[in-house]
């Protein structure tokens, strides 16, 4: 990723090294997002009386990776936590607007947030495996504690499948009864991914999943993300622009307004956003003038 300091009119802001696939990046069609992905309409979020998000609207393409970038404190994490109704876990937090998962508003009255979270999984910034459980029990936790599966054989099958999907099976298959805390940071994060996968969600949210990891582990997880994107819809929050550029199909850029509420200033295919941003603020942020 090179920053081009020669600004010729019409020239790309950055020369952009894309990933290997030559598949062209299309914009997201609303119909597609409505039926299979996520549609966010006029989302506002508050912590008590402080507004953290203002009128966010967004389309998340199914089975693609959407990145949310922006400077610290602009509300990226808040936004992603609205997608699986984790935002409201904080006392005095509330939300208005719509988030449509396959066309259904997850904030419709009478909707059970527990069921939402079973369909929209989350991986956190700092790997958080359950310390009192073994590797096996961690991955199985969602299945067991939700009452989905009880029979040992089925659980074991699901655990192996999830660990394979998370590219962790080979490394841990002989020691799944060891405590999860014995794994390295990168392995723990993949374990958390496996744990989220075991519940068979449709969407996977990742809140800065690599920021606590070393570069080697980071690359492994990025590869894993691209693999997973074949099956799952992925939304990733990252403060690392290069990562967003490497990994995502679409990018949403957020900025903090004067009253510290977060707004979405740009959204589009990643290549476009990084080479021909429409908003001056995006350009400033990407070229490192602030943030």
């Amino acid at each position: 990723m090179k920053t081009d300091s020669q600004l010729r009119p019409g020239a790309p802001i950055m020369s952009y090294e894309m990933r290997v696939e030559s598949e062209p990046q299309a914009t997201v069609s609303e119909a597609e997002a409505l039926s299979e992905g996520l549609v966010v309409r006029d989302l506002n979020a508050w912590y008590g009386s402080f507004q953290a998000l203002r009128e966010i609207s967004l389309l998340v393409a199914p089975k693609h990776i959407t990145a949310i970038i922006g400077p610290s404190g602009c509300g990226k994490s808040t936004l992603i936590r609205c997608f699986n109704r984790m935002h409201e876990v904080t006392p005095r937090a509330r939300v208005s607007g719509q988030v449509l998962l396959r066309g259904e508003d997850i904030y419709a009255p009478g909707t059970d947030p527990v069921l939402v979270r079973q369909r929209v999984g989350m991986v956190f910034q700092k790997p958080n495996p359950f310390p009192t459980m073994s590797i096996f029990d961690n991955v199985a936790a969602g299945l067991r504690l939700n009452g989905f599966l009880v029979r040992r054989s089925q659980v074991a099958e699901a655990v192996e499948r999830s660990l394979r999907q998370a590219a962790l099976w080979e490394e841990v298959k002989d020691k799944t009864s060891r405590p999860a805390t014995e794994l390295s940071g990168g392995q723990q994060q993949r374990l958390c991914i496996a744990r989220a996968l075991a519940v068979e969600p449709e969407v996977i949210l990742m809140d800065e999943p690599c920021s606590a990891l070393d570069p080697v582990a980071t690359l492994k997880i990025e590869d894993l993300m691209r693999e997973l994107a074949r099956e799952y819809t992925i939304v990733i929050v990252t403060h690392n622009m290069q990562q967003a550029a490497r990994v995502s199909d679409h990018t949403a850029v957020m900025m903090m307004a004067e009253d510290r509420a977060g707004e979405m200033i740009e959204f589009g295919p990643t290549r476009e956003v990084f080479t021909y941003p429409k908003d001056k603020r995006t350009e400033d942020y990407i070229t490192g003038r602030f943030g």
Partner: protein
Amino acid sequence: MSGFAYRRRKIASIVVLGLCASSAFAAVGVLALILGFVLVNGISSLNLDFFTHMPTPLGEPGGGVANSIVGSLLIVGIAALLGIPAGVGAGVFLSEYASPRLGNVIRFTADVLTGVPSIVVGVFVYSMIVLKMGHFSALAAGIALAIIMLPIMARSSEEMLKLVPRSHREAALALGITRWRTILSVIIPAARRGLVTGGLLAVARAGGETAPLMFTALGNRFMSLSVTGGPIDALPMRIWRYGIGPYPEWHQQAWAASFVLVMMVFTISLTARLVLTRR
């Protein structure tokens, strides 16, 4: 700064600090003094009979405290069964559910409740339960001790549960696990060491209480295994009755029983602290 004045201050400092050190060792010295007497006076009467036999008729030598030990175990068992889950549950409420204001009110009440004299609790249970039931019982005694254990357990459980990092709760909730399942299967297991310690300390405290038992269990010269049937004896009550009684043999047995009681209480307390630091 004059050298003389400074030297005087320095000497004053050393003297006062010496007093502080001797205070600390005096405190420990008192403990040693008490334990020493309990040990010396009590150990001579300890034999197998002491643990397995019942008390002999008045004035006759020999006999043991078997019924008192069994009574204590039964009463404390009931108290633990009632008080520990209730206390942990209250701790869960304080840590996971309560609003700040309600939480403060309950916390304050718990702290104040720990200061209620145990004899007052005994009088209360006598009035509420013994009078209504018409007789003394192990159940009444257990309830009295449970009331004493409840606020202690609640506060210590709350502190232990609060120590479990938020990330555990978030990870579980994000998997779509319900709140109560999260509490039961993730948070409480994560805090189990501290909870066990709290429980053991509460039990040690309850096991040494005498006053509430006087109004609820009354004491019994015979073995009783009945929970609601009638008066039942307990080790602390035995120590009291025999200690102030007229017979020297009784005094001997009181010392020996004291030794047993102290050993039990100290062992449980020590175990509690080891659980916290080791396991």
